[in-house]
């Protein structure tokens, strides 16, 4: 009879990664990929933050000359692109999704581990691609929405826009891969017994966001390819002089762009629905309503895109239709807001740092949501669109509602990932600094927008009554930066000095808290069985798993193995062999980078050669993985 120690030892050997740097370069472990995503997105977050601070410093006084219009236009364009495509999406789907989803559903890895690694390396390369453009003076400069004709060859003849089109197209490949991977993982790798109604709300949120990405990104990609063809090969999709349409760009862009907003915040909803039960000691109120609302908010989000175009002169009937659709998307949001609030109210809340960030998130989301509702009043929208009122609105949503839960999640899962406890008091202080800073930064933007200050101006006249608000905003920006630095300093110090956390410091509701901190490479020594959405609170099930480990039932120790579950009710239908560490993902990403680099300088011959290299790499990829016997 094999002992538990021998079983665990065998799993250790079979799942061990290569040592050192090579191990990280060839890793396919979802936790390592998640961490790589985490560190990389933080670097981009820092870059986007510095861009924001430079812009706030430029706007601190009227007619300022800190930066000129050329620099400023690149700063606000790249700031928007970075925060959306290189920080929030990869941080949520790439870092949180990769690291946590398999742990929450009782899986040993993502469904496609090598594709997962590929998505990271592509993501990293696309970010370097964008920033090489920016640092060589060719940063995209027509706004993240990149309207034509401003972005066409006639009005933007330099290479700036190629770094936009190709950078985003490159990045979307990574997002698409991650989204497809998350969908298959959530649908097919759930632990035995985890039927849909027993799946954590976190997973519903990531499922919704991933489906959103899969359906929204093609619209953006088409737009990007059209624009690349028009700028470089003489096509006329958006060329007004030759029968093209400037509206086409906007429709395709916002058909992607609005779902994108929900893709940004739905994972944050998922994080909130994990943190709230853990710190209130109660299950979420209205669980089924919240699950449906998470999916609905993305679904309805696909029907509202033209509310970004209320001032474009579309027929009034069209405007009214989209205003109606926009009003519908409010309902799933309010369901969730009240479910969070009532769960906190009806539980026994302990106001630790993660929950504080969730409370800050709820307040910011409601404030940003209420100004969002105002935009469905078409005359009001036509007055305030393209002003700082809109900037205030979407920063309350994107910073307040998407980034606050990311911060909260970092603190919540820090003990799981590092095995250390963070320091509570500095965490709470950093929350209050950030909360005060962001409100100082973004609230006056409402007022200055109503006073008529337009967006995307590199300077403004001194006699408009806007100056004092801009000063407050800039100070708020600096305070926010201090708070964020404090937040990360605390985490770094905690990593080195924190007390050991143990597997489950919060008495967390979901399965990741049932394994050691940090989790072993194979995640679960025995595949857990699940009988509710709060599996870690079902002590009987966890105890039974212990017995199964001793008996060797469900340990899948014969190879690099993973169970596959049926779609709806989550019972194991088969066992599959999973690929192990592989050099092909990074090689393929490198070949793709060279292809995109050749496209930006329009060396099509070399681009074709690298396309062949990519095909050869794919052939190598699909050769049989050597299996450990």
């Amino acid at each position, binding site marked *: 009879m094999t002992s538990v120690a021998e079983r665990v030892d065998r799993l250790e050997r079979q799942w061990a990664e290569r040592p050192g740097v090579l191990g990280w370069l060839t890793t396919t472990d979802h936790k390592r990929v998640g961490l790589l995503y985490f560190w990389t997105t933080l670097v981009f977050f820092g870059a986007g933050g510095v861009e924001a601070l430079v812009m706030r410093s430029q706007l601190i006084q009227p007619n300022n000359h800190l930066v000129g219009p050329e620099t400023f236009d690149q700063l606000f364009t790249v700031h928007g692109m970075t925060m959306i495509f290189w920080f929030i999406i990869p941080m949520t789907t790439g870092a949180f999704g990769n690291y946590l989803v398999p742990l929450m559903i009782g899986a040993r890895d993502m469904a496609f581990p090598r594709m997962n690694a590929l998505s990271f390396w592509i993501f990293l390369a696309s970010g370097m691609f964008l920033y090489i453009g920016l640092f060589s003076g060719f940063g995209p400069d027509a706004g993240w929405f990149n*309207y034509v*004709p401003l972005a066409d060859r006639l009005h933007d003849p330099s290479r700036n826009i190629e770094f936009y089109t190709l950078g985003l197209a490159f990045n979307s490949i990574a997002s698409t891969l991650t989204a497809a991977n998350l969908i298959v993982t959530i649908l097919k790798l759930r632990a035995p017994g985890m039927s849909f109604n027993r799946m954590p709300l976190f997973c519903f949120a990531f499922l919704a966001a991933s489906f959103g990405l899969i359906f929204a990104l093609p619209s953006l990609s088409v737009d990007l390819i059209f624009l690349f063809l028009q700028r470089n090969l003489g096509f006329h999709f958006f060329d007004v002089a030759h029968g093209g349409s400037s509206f086409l760009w906007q429709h395709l862009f916002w058909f992607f762009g609005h779902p994108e907003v929900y893709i940004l915040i739905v994972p944050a909803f998922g994080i909130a629905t994990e943190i709230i039960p853990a710190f209130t000691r109660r299950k979420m109120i209205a669980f089924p309503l919240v699950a449906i609302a998470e999916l609905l908010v993305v679904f309805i989000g696909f029907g509202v895109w033209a509310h970004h175009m209320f001032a474009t002169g579309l027929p009034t009937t069209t405007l009214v239709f989209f205003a109606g659709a926009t009003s519908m998307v409010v*309902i799933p949001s309010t369901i969730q807001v009240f479910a969070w609030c009532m769960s906190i109210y009806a539980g026994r809340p302990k106001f630790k740092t993660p929950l504080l960030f969730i409370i800050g998130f709820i307040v910011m989301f409601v404030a940003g949501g209420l*100004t969002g509702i105002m935009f469905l*009043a078409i005359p009001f929208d036509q*007055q305030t669109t393209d002003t700082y009122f809109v900037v205030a609105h979407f920063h309350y949503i994107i910073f307040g509602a998407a980034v606050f839960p990311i911060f909260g999640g970092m603190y919540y899962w820090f003990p799981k990932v590092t095995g250390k406890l963070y320091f509570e008091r500095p965490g709470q202080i950093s929350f209050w600094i950030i909360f005060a800073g962001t409100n100082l930064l973004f609230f006056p933007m409402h007022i200055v927008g109503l006073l008529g200050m337009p*967006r995307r101006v590199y300077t403004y006249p001194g006699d408009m009554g806007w100056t004092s608000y801009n000063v407050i905003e800039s100070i708020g920006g600096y305070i926010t930066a201090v708070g964020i630095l404090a937040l990360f300093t605390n985490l770094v110090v905690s990593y080195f000095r924190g007390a050991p956390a143990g597997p489950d410091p919060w008495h967390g509701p979901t399965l990741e808290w049932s394994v050691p901190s940090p989790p072993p490479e194979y995640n679960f020594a025995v595949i857990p069985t699940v009988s509710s959405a709060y599996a870690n609170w079902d002590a009987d099930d966890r105890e039974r798993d212990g017995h199964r480990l001793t008996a060797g039932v469900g340990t899948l120790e014969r190879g690099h193995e993973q169970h596959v579950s049926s779609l709806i009710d989550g019972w194991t239908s088969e066992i599959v062999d999973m690929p192990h560490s592989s050099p092909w993902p990074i090689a393929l990403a490198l070949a793709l980078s060279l292809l995109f680099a050749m496209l930006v300088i329009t060396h099509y011959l070399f681009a074709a050669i690298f396309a062949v290299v990519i095909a050869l790499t794919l052939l190598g990829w699909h050769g049989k993985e050597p299996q450990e016997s």
Partner: protein
Amino acid sequence: MLAGSAAGLGVIVAILVGAWFKRGVDGADRPGTITVIALGIVTPILVLAALFAYSDIFLIRGTSPPVAAAATNDLSVRVIGHQFWWEIRYPGSGVVTANEIHIPVRTHVVVSVHSDDVIHSFWVPQLNRKIDVFPDQVNRVELYADKPGRYRGQCAEFCGLQHAHMGFYVFAQPRAAYDRWLRMQARPAKRFNALFDDKCSSCHAIQGTPAHAHVGPDLTHVGSRTSLAALTIPNTAAHMADWLRNTQQVKPGSQMPEVDLTNAQVRQLTRYLESLK
């Protein structure tokens, strides 16, 4: 709308503050799902229906421009967006000006807008909503001023390097003053200047002289305007001279190139342009 939002935010904050005061107390018996349905579904449906009906059915009718066929009795003005200034035309009178629109008070003025290059947005916050200015579509917006006065407007859609300096004024005047202004603007210039013809006429027009290009603003009555370069600087002799000398410092990225002029030539051109009242 602002009060309603404050109330909505107040409810949420009240619940969260309530939770703070009851921390550590088991609240399992407190209302749950019913509250979520009442406050999260029923209440927003009622509020949204009311807001939608008021703003998107009633308010929108009262402030929209009349449909094309019914517009004949109203005064109409054509506005053409350029990087980075506004061309203003008064159909029927031959008047072409730039960055300053004169309208009679208490009159519905229909402004038809389109763009010569990229997308702009025409916006006079105090007189009506904004409307985007497209190269491939003519949009219309109505201006109506109750009181005489000067109303600031500006481009609201990012249009390139000098989007920040693409402002304009709307001057609402009593009917008689407006008519007088329009008659004066319709007159051709009295004087011809050979230096202008040599240096400036490839882009600018002065009616009554051989200069008739329409790349840059029509300068027939430039001396009568209050500002230069789409509200970047006031229209004084000193600023005019500075603009002619240091165009790209005054408005970096402006489409106007820096023309090679001696100091004497700058003085001569300034005097000429300021005389075009």
